């Protein structure tokens, strides 16, 4: 049998396992179509808020030694309502809508905006490390996580994913709370809070001083999170963090992820990265005699 790289993340069925991560290139339907044509299994939108946000002033993104990027874009986005209008015409592209907010009502309100859109899943950003009152500040608060996930699960039948990251509490508690409230899947991880200082001008480079580290440097951290989650809970996982090659993707499958997302790798390898990774996964499956992604998921825990 010819192997297939199609995958199911719980209820979420995708033809290809590598998705565009949230916040990356994600503000235009034309771009989504292009990325889908380039081999992305789904695209996750920028994290949308109830109203549009300008984000932080530049500098907002730059690269650091070791192949990483630090960003503090500040969740700039056109707002859920504008965005929903833009993607209404979409039929083909599996779009995962990322939402960010401070209270359950924010999420409820935004989900209503998407009533006329084909939404593959909602991803709740509980983990942005550099914007106050949303993201990690929410993810680190078990009461809020509970309220938000419960509200979202009541508001829609579309699957909901919680995106977690390393904050000031144990992210595994966030995972566990989200599971208790019926979350359908977990994305792990967001960027890791970080900074860089320029030694000549003696200033933090980001206008926001603090930002999030992404790319190659965080891969071993993200991988251990996926492994920890899959060892402790029975929940579909999407791995994210530093994935840039097919080997990276396979590592995440073996650790327990049913799908992966990538962002920073696009800065280095551009949009061809999706097909490169898809092809690598397929070759690996042929060589190792797998016919589905599922057969690989979590294998590293057996050893």
């Amino acid at each position, binding site marked *: 049998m010819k192997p297939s790289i199609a995958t199911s993340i719980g209820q979420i069925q995708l033809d290809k396992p590598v998705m565009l991560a949230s916040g990356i290139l994600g503000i235009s339907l034309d771009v989504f*179509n292009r990325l889908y044509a380039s081999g992305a299994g789904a695209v996750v939108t920028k994290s949308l808020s109830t109203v*549009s946000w*300008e*984000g932080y002033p*530049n*500098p*907002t993104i730059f690269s650091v030694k070791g192949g990483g*990027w630090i*960003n503090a874009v500040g969740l*700039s986005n056109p707002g859920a309502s504008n965005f929903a209008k833009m993607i209404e015409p979409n039929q083909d592209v599996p779009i995962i809508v990322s939402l960010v907010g401070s209270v359950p009502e924010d999420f409820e309100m935004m989900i209503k905006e998407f009533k006329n859109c084909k939404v593959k899943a909602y991803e709740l950003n509980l983990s942005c490390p550099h914007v106050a009152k949303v993201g990690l500040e929410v993810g680190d608060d078990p009461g809020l996580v509970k309220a938000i996930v419960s509200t979202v699960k009541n508001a829609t039948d579309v699957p909901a994913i919680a995106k977690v990251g390393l904050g000031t509490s144990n992210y595994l508690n966030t995972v566990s709370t989200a599971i208790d409230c019926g979350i359908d899947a977990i994305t792990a991880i967001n960027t890791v809070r970080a900074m860089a200082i320029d030694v000549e001008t003696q200033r933090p480079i980001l206008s926001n001083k603090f930002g999030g580290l992404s790319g190659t440097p965080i891969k071993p951290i993200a991988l251990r999170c996926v492994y920890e989650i899959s060892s402790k809970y029975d929940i579909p996982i999407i791995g994210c963090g530093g994935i840039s090659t097919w080997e990276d993707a396979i590592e995440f499958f073996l650790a327990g992820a049913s799908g992966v997302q990538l962002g920073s790798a696009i800065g280095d390898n551009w949009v061809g990265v999706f097909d490169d990774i898809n092809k690598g996964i397929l070759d690996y499956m042929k060589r190792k005699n797998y016919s589905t992604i599922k057969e690989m998921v979590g294998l590293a825990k057996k050893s």
Partner: protein
Amino acid sequence: MQRNLNHPTIVTIEKVIDETPTVRTLVFSDDVMPTVLPGQFAMVWIPGVNELPMSVMISKESGKAAFTVRKHGPSSTGLFNVPVGGQIGIRGPYGNSFDVKEGKLLLVGGGTGLVPMMRLLSFVKPTDDVTVLMGAKSKDEVFFEDLSNELLKNNPHQVIVSTDDGSYGEKGFVTDLVEKLVSETHFDAVYVCGPEIMMYKTVQAAHAKQIFVQASLERMMKCGVGICGSCCVGEDLACRDGTVFDGGHLSKNKEFGHFHRNKAGILENY
């Protein structure tokens, strides 16, 4: 250790040239920027102020490059005000570049859109017959006229200036002159950089005559490498797929000439 081109490298401004009361050229030494291709840009960090995309300007001295900035909002004014000895951070070069064609060339620039044109002039062959068309609002906003003539001193060439108010050179909009020129003369290539409407009309005029035409687009930029998405123009990312696009490609783009995105990513009319 190798320089990380995506991390700001600090350079020191060595010379400031006042081009007009609102336009300045800031010259600095660097290993990378003096040899970038025409059309490429850098992300320029003005510490404590902001970071802006800037076309890389040529310098007469080897080993040096420059930025030519028009003071406008707070960011560009911050760069404009960097004194000799002041430090800025640069990363890049980013973007693709103009295809340097041979023969009869028309270069159209408005304001600081002339910057990539100056670098393009440094790539022309002595056999090329070059027309430079530069637009400005009024006489005191005209710059790079002498520089263009100097760069083209070994070429058959003409440098045409037009001002909206007629206070210098031809009176009227550059785009009217473009239409006239392309209908009179066969050009082998037309290059344009400036306000979007100028680029749109130039592309239309040239494309209608089936002349090879390229425009260098400006959009809101954050990363410069194709991660953040802020510079998207339809399905294209200006920073990575461009900034230089062929006329044929642009005429199929629904946003070019009509919309750009603001800082929140919302489409706005030009």
